């Protein structure tokens, strides 16, 4: 393992090398310090019920845990970041498998879990060709695993659900881990996660302020056209500004390309949200679980990130590339 690779994987001293990381971390800390005051003032002013107040505080407490779960690994090093992404993949898949009933199909679930483990290894190893190969290979294995019970009835359903699960929570989310193979991964990941979460909040606020026409009433009755457009209008320039500093003086650093990336984050993020709404509505559920007090399940919180990860990865990869100049096949690169 080269010195550069070791520093990228475990070098927490580089945590604040990039100013965007500093700004975003400070913003997060400030928001967490201000939020209690805002909650107190708002609940007093609106004379909220104790249930409403409890829900807000639950949400706040959960946000602190979530922020720590996101911030600490990213700042600590790429190794921890990749493990955190793998944990997120497993937790998301677990919830998905339980709400769809796929968890009862032990063989398929086992193959998906093995697939996610191998993906994580390919990311840690910075072996992008293995990462790419694992998608069709795992799909093939799922198709084979579905044969094992020798029950053709329901074959398409269990294999289809397995493939969708692996595609969304393994391959798509795995792109977040792959970004950690870039030397400057910290501001990139923080910016994306920040923008996606802000995008949700902007859509919520704008929906309340200017939301009149329903957007997709059957999928998600609370979403409005105003909310969706408002989120795009606010997230896009903010993200483009951050991205300008992250990819300063690269091929991506033109106004059109930066705004294009901002639009992708906002639009695809909202589609991710709608995707989970559709899944839940199809199953007749409100939340995917009750793991996070005040939020619901892990999927309810991270739904927007799932589709954004591959979209941003490949957009950036097209213009500048990820992990340029980084050691490849860190563990498997030995020659006989």
């Amino acid at each position, binding site marked *: 393992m080269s010195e550069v690779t070791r520093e990228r994987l475990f070098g927490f001293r580089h945590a604040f090398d990039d100013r965007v990381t500093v700004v975003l971390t400070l913003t997060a800390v400030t928001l967490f310090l201000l939020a209690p005051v805002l909650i107190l003032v708002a609940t007093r002013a609106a004379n909220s019920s104790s249930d409403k107040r409890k829900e807000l505080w639950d949400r706040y407490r959960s946000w602190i845990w979530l922020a720590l779960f996101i911030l600490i690994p990213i700042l600590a090093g790429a190794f921890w970041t990749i493990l955190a992404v793998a944990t997120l993949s497993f937790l998301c898949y677990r919830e998905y498998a339980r709400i*769809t009933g796929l968890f009862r199909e*032990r063989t398929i*679930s086992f193959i998906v879990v093995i697939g996610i483990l191998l993906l994580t290894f390919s990311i840690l190893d910075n072996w992008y060709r293995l990462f790419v190969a694992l998608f069709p290979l795992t799909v093939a294995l799922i198709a084979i695993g579905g044969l094992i019970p020798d029950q053709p009835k*329901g074959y398409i359903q*269990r294999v289809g659900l397995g493939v969708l699960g692996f595609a969304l929570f393994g391959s798509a989310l795995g792109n977040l881990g792959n970004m950690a193979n870039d030397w400057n991964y910290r501001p990139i990941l923080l910016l994306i996660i920040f923008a996606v979460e802000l995008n949700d909040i902007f859509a919520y606020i704008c929906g309340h302020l200017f939301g009149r026409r329903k957007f997709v009433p059957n999928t998600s009755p609370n979403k409005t056209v105003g909310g969706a457009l408002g989120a795009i209008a606010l997230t896009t320039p903010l993200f483009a500004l951050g991205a300008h500093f992250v990819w300063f003086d690269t091929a991506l650093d033109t106004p059109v390309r930066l705004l294009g990336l901002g639009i992708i984050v906002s639009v695809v993020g909202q589609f991710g949200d709608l995707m989970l709404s559709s899944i839940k509505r199809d199953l007749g559920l409100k939340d995917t679980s009750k*793991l996070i007090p005040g939020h619901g399940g892990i999927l309810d919180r991270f739904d927007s990130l799932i589709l954004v990860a591959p979209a941003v990865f490949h957009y950036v990869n097209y213009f500048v590339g990820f992990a340029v100049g980084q050691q490849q096949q860190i563990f498997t690169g030995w020659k006989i």
Partner: protein
Amino acid sequence: MEPWNLQPAHDTGLTPSERFRSVRRESGLLESLAHHACFSLLRSYFAIAHRLTIVGREKLPAHGPFVLAANHCSHLDALALGAALTPRHRERAFPIAAGDVFFQTKMTSTFSAIMLNALPMWRKNCGPHALADLRLKLQEEKAIFIIFPEGRRSRTGSMMPFKHGLGMLVAETNVPVVPCGLIGTFDALPAERNFPRPGAIKLAIGNPLQFGSIANDRSGWSQIAKSVESNVRDLIGQSRAA
């Protein structure tokens, strides 16, 4: 194509600690691995420390649903019965354990659920709906219940009369009840001891009993309890004599 028949987990919408205490709990991949690991270890433990011998294992039905009903005088009883099951059976085997002992705190309920796959039975205020939930689970999930119809551990080692609850689970269904006689667990770990001492344990498995034609009412339940009780008594008697 088959109509869509995959259902969300029955415990969807419960918080983790509610889930561990719920009889609607369904295990995931990791939990199944944990039960398998736990019972495989217990199997070796019983083989080494208690020279566990099992008579009549071939009488167990090939698959669930069925109920294993045994005499109860030690915490080792449920573990010995669980260890006697094949890995295929174990996946769906649920020891029914006293809520006030095994599910009182978060720690114990997490352990009981993850390691033992136990389901709680609340002895103080268990209404008929608790048994109705278990009855439903037994049939719907093709489950295997390990139950002790005496309702508590015998403090003397001799068997006490069986309670009606067993009847409420199986009356008017074709779920077989397999009577089981355990010998040696009282000497190994009586209620007042904290740690087991080595000593031979014997498990005798009887022929499955069906109660499809017995009415699902008080007299039917009592008839079922009596019938299973006399079968277990016979098994213990025969094993002692052998």
